[in-house]
């Protein structure tokens, strides 16, 4: 039972809990072993986690930094050595309300310090926990509060283990699950056993979900909305609508779900190849938000460079702080626009201990990043393994690669000196941004892991004139 969990907040994000082995310590198992709780048929459960991640990048080479802006202003990753850290503490509280109905409430504390104020990397953010409006001062907030109703309609009985955000129970293999409230889109969409629960796996955000999946979320990675899932034996179908932030990458959500929204649809098929479990998922999203198109920003600048430049946005428009009077800016062209994308997510177990994964997404790339990363097209792939072969079955090791690209319109805008929410060096020599991430997690105590990590990031912010960047990291993670 128990979990391996971890809603992880990324620069807007979170990941859904994954199950963890029965033998691990946690409060629910403890009281169950004392005969005080029925973990197979729960009326409530409570779990928690703590994670501290520290990262360091040494000095790296860069032909220029924040070109066209005064020192300290702009979106470049600073080439001097930097240290970054995050600390999170989360409680996962669940209760059964009536037959089939479960309610969950997840308060969380975060404190953080990012590289370069979270600027200068596209999809290859070195620490998936980083949030957009975090600070080194600990902040308590509600990450999730939602209700779900399961309606069984036949098939085999499926045991659902007690886990964070899941009560121990049994459901039909054919069922409908309705869910509404406050949670993250990627709590339930785009799951992957080997690349998703990043508090136990890779450090880099490129492995949390598709880097090009600009799923609607507030600055912490959560949203408000509703979704439905239909499970029919080996098939699953999901559809949901969620609220976007009022302004790009902002904390406040707009609750006009008929006017502005993020829709997603996903179909999943679970399979077995040579007796090994695997799954294929196809996901498409459509966002309707008040966001700027790169071509519109360029056209506005070319029509009147004196008025429509980044230094002229004024205080009433969001322009991410650029003072470059010779650059276009998205602040002049924000009105209702659409963004779409489609992706494929595959996972396959190779042996009892080793699994491989692949994710690839193509988004249209015509509009600015609204909630996740600046990447327009992305691929991630890799493998992770438990250490049974070397008699450390609770240890986990993994290696993966994350690749990202931006659209031509996006590159043209950056080349002219424009910036978006996270990147923009003043100009660009367009290239694929990539990260290779390797980690090893040592299970030092029953439910405590100590991890080390190395990342090699090339062409940060899709710019061949900068980098590569080496990042060294360490993580302490505990579950209870």
């Amino acid at each position, binding site marked *: 039972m128990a979990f391996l969990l971890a809603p992880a907040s990324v620069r807007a994000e979170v990941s859904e809990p994954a199950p963890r082995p029965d033998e691990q310590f946690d409060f629910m198992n403890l009281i169950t072993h004392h005969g005080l709780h029925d973990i197979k048929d729960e009326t*409530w459960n409570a779990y928690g986690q703590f994670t501290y991640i520290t990262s360091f990048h040494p000095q790296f080479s860069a032909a220029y930094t924040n070109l066209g802006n005064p020192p300290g202003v702009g979106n470049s990753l600073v080439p001097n050595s930097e240290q970054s850290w995050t600390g999170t503490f989360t409680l996962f509280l669940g209760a059964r309300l009536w037959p089939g109905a479960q309610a969950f409430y997840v308060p969380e504390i975060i404190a953080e310090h990012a590289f370069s104020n979270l600027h200068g990397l596209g999809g290859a953010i070195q620490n998936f926990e980083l949030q957009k409006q975090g600070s080194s001062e600990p902040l308590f907030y509600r990450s999730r509060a939602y209700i779900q109703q399961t309606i069984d309609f036949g098939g085999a009985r499926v045991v659902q283990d007690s886990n964070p955000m899941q009560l121990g129970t049994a459901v039909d293999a054919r069922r409908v699950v309705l869910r509404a409230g406050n949670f993250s889109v990627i709590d339930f969409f785009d799951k992957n056993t080997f690349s998703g629960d990043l508090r136990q796996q890779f450090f880099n955000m490129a492995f949390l979900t598709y880097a090009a999946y600009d799923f609607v979320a507030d600055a912490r990675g959560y949203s408000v909305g509703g979704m439905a899932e239909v499970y029919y034996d080996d098939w699953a179908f999901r559809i949901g609508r969620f609220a976007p932030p009022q302004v790009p990458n902002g904390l406040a959500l707009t609750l006009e779900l008929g006017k502005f929204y993020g829709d997603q649809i996903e179909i999943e098929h679970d399979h077995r190849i040579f007796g090994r479990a695997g799954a294929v998922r196809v996901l498409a999203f459509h966002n309707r938000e008040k966001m700027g198109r790169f071509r519109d920003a360029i056209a506005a600048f070319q029509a009147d460079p004196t008025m429509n430049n980044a230094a002229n946005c004024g205080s009433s428009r969001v322009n991410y702080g650029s003072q470059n009077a010779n650059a276009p800016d998205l602040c002049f062209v924000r009105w209702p626009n659409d963004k779409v994308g489609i992706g494929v997510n595959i996972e396959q177990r190779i042996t009892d201990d080793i699994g491989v994964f692949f994710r690839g997404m193509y988004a249209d790339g015509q509009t600015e990043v609204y909630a996740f990363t600046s990447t327009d097209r992305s691929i991630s792939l890799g493998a992770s393994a438990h250490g049974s072969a070397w008699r450390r079955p609770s240890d986990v090791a993994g290696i993966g690669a994350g690749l990202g690209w931006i659209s031509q319109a996006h590159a043209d805008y950056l080349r002219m000196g424009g910036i978006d929410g996270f990147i923009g060096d003043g100009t660009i020599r367009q290239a694929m941004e990539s990260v290779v991430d390797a980690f090893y997690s040592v299970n030092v105590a029953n439910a405590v892991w100590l991890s080390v990590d190395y990342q090699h990031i090339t062409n940060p912010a899709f710019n061949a004139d900068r980098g590569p960047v080496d990042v060294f990291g360490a993580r302490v993670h505990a579950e209870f």
Partner: protein
Amino acid sequence: MRSFSVEGFPAASRPSRVALAFTAALAVTIARSSSAGAQQQAQGFAVERFYPSAPGGGWFVMDTLDMHGQVGGAVALTLGYAYKPLVITDGVQHFGVVTDEAFADLAVALTYERFRVYANFSHPMVISGTGGSIGAYTYKAPSVDAGRNPDLITDVRIGYDARLIGVHDSPFRLGMGAQLLIPNGDRSDYDTDGAFRAMVRVLFAGDVGMFTYAGQLGWHIRSLDDSPTPGSPQGSELLFGAAAGPRFPVTCSGSTALVVGPEVYGETAFQSFFGATTTGLEALLSGRLEGTASNGSQLRIKLGGGGGISAHFGAPEWRFVAGIEVFDHQGP
């Protein structure tokens, strides 16, 4: 760069006119700045003094102290609205710094035998009011709404209660409780003091025939002392309160009961014990429908309305609250 000129005056007279204008402007500036210097901005504080009881506690504020059995728990959701919980006045003029306050308080508790641990997470849905000045103090109106602050949690309360005397349904039960309030939020939103607080309380309750009662006396350890600022906290406070009412069975089997009765509660600063400007006293008339089985999961639905008896911060002109609790006791 554009140049400025003084038009309409003979050239020879311009310097003196400019000097005159400059002198006048300087005088106005000095007068304004000295006036502004005397003005102080009120920083804000946790205006709410309605502290919902621990989940499973029965009353809205008081506590029935009826924990029993093996490991059990409770989940409670309390929704409330308060009108004018903070009105600043100097006797002549007055304005509501906080006129509308709506909140949702979600709380969870674990119980074991006579012990309980719990946590309350309060979400402000609306906090709004009117800014203004009285005397030397300027008040900025708070502005909180669910869209703008989608995930805000104000001060988190973590508590521990233990029943020391009596069993869960005895005529007299005595217990003690402690709460730690972890600061979270923004003082200017009037939802936190920005500092840790604590409460230590003596709790009592009982069931005598069809009557039930509960009360508390405690010490609210509050470091914030904004004594000179009208309507603000003045350090640590005495907590007090009591509730009582009859319990009517509403089903033939007696499995569901209705409890109706008043709850009166308040706080007063030790610094000015029961002083007119340091005491907030409020009364609620509440009713609740609840399951009466001593074993298994039960539901409780609560409604209440009332208002401030002694107007000080946190005691609103009127208040409406509603709550729902699911509580679970396993074993005797």
